């Protein structure tokens, strides 16, 4: 049974969240102190050029009017155009989307594929060497700054073995060369992700294995493997899913950093370039885009959680 009511409610809520957050992005960008046109053109701009740019950007209109117009365009999927190239921002960002998505996907996979089993195993065998190793390792994974880990990952092989990863190539162009660069890049984010996932997996698994139904399952004579995978993991997955959705925000932030270190032509690099050239409409579009991705991922994981666990719907 799927609770359509619940899903509809979540959908509505996600939409409201997106509206509030992207409106906030609009207002943040409109509080830029002084004149945005002056900031873009620099100190030597002629008044005429400033006036023209103001008109072009629409900032000669009052904020309220601009907001309504912007919101209307947003709902039609139009984020406006770059202040310099006039290219539609949606098209600009879509071109860069694949790199960032690949990074996020690889990092999530690494976090889940290594983090969940590590947490599970250390919970099933508390006090084992794995358990003793995992706790400090996971705190270390959370503490190490991603920009530093990324730099070391580039620096060490190059000083020790004179190895440098190849330049960026698109995944579809030459997959192998692409992965040679993307795997270490996503490992930087995946490392921190792994740390938090293994921590939560360990905690929930410790709680689950104490439950009565686990004892019952063992008492029935089921093998440890069946109990762990069929009974315990299924129930431990829910908090893990919740964590993945919460941590996805940190992951998106991480892509900005990693794209900068590994010179990957993704959304984050585009945003930083836009900040440096003061192309504020692009920065604003980037923020709205990230919020949209985050809200969507949360919505999907939320619905997935309710399908896995009917109790949540009625909580």
């Amino acid at each position, binding site marked *: 049974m799927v609770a359509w009511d619940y899903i509809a409610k979540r959908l509505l809520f996600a939409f*409201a*969240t*997106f509206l*509030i*957050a992207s409106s*906030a*992005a609009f207002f*943040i*960008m409109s*509080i*830029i*102190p002084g004149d945005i046109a002056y900031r873009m053109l620099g100190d030597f701009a002629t008044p005429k050029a400033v006036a023209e740019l103001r008109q072009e950007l629409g900032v000669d209109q009052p904020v309220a009017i601009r907001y309504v117009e912007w919101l209307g365009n947003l709902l039609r999927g139009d984020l406006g155009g770059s202040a310099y190239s006039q290219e539609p921002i949606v098209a600009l960002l879509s071109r860069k989307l694949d790199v960032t998505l690949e990074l996020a996907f690889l990092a999530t996979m690494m976090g889940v594929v290594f983090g969940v089993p590590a947490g599970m195993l250390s919970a099933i065998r508390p006090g084992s060497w794995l358990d003793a190793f995992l706790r400090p390792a996971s*705190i*270390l994974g*959370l*503490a*190490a*700054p*991603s*920009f*530093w880990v990324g*730099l*070391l990952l580039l*620096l060490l092989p*190059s*000083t020790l073995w004179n190895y440098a990863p190849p330049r960026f190539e698109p995944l579809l162009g030459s997959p192998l060369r692409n992965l040679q660069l993307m795997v270490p890049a996503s490992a930087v984010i995946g490392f921190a992700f792994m740390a938090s996932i293994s921590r939560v997996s360990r*905690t929930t698994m*410790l709680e689950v294995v104490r439950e009565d139904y686990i004892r019952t399952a063992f008492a029935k004579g089921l093998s440890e493997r069946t109990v762990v995978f069929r009974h315990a993991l299924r129930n431990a997955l829910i908090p893990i899913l919740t964590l993945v959705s919460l941590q*996805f*925000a*940190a992951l*998106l*932030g*991480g892509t*900005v*950093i990693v794209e*900068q270190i590994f010179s990957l032509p993704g959304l984050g690099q585009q*945003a*930083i370039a836009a*900040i*440096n050239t003061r192309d*504020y409409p692009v*920065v*604003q579009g*980037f*923020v709205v885009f*990230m*919020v949209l991705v*985050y*809200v969507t991922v*949360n919505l999907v994981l939320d619905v997935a959680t309710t399908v896995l666990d009917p109790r949540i719907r009625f909580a």
Partner: protein
Amino acid sequence: MTSIEGTTPAGALPYGGWREWRVRRVLIGFVRARPLGAVSACVILAMAFAALFASVVSPYDPNLKNTALLLDGPTLSHPFGTDQLGRDVLTRVIYGARITLFIGLAVTAVSGGLGLAIGVTSGYFGGRVDRITVMLLDAMMAFPGLILAIALVTALGSSVLNVILAVLVGFTARVARLIRSNVLSVRSTAYVDAARATGATNVRLLVRHVVPNVVPLLIVLGSLNFGVAMLVEGSLSFLGLGPPPPTPSWGRMLSSEGQQFFRSAPWLGIFPGLVLAVAVFAFNLLGDALRDHLDPRLRGS
């Protein structure tokens, strides 16, 4: 704390009386039970000390350029080496602690205070205000933290105050949300009901019963947030959006202005990041230890 009167002769107390003695007892208890947490606290205190008295502790002037020693490796006189302008890296790391620790402290303190006020009000009084607050907090949390900070710094310009503001927004929302749920569970406990039954006013209930019971959570969150705030500040500085030069900052030491020299002078890339990692690690360990010590119910979470 109930057995204090019975176990200690009053004559053995130092001049400060019961209160000071209790503080000392709590401290000793913490050190005994959580040695790792105590070591972390010492590391943090040592860093704070070095940052506060940077001009006394550090061997050189942070902006002194020794052109005879450009990109010189770690030696006894320059333990962390020198950079491309011949400046002592150790000195710059010590001075860099100032800005990072200050921003961490400011963000933690203000987000803790604001978060406590919002969370307690929203959770304790409930109703429509609570629903609207939660909705707004959730919308604020829909911003990926670093990206919100990037947007704010871009709009406001990158001064120390603006970086603090930018990091603060997301942190306050998170603290408020967690405090609120904690208040909800405290509000429904028997001792609050009992106090209300004796005729205690809302103010008294809040001050004497609700707030003291969410303080442990606040302390734990503060310790963990301190570390994360330092990481966000580092990331912003790394991206060139942190406090502007000449303030030395760990994130900026690792950013593009030094990167081109890292291959020939790896110490430039290793030490600032290592110190930041150690600092965040210490705050995380301390936060974990405090959580286990202050609130057994949260243990392992």
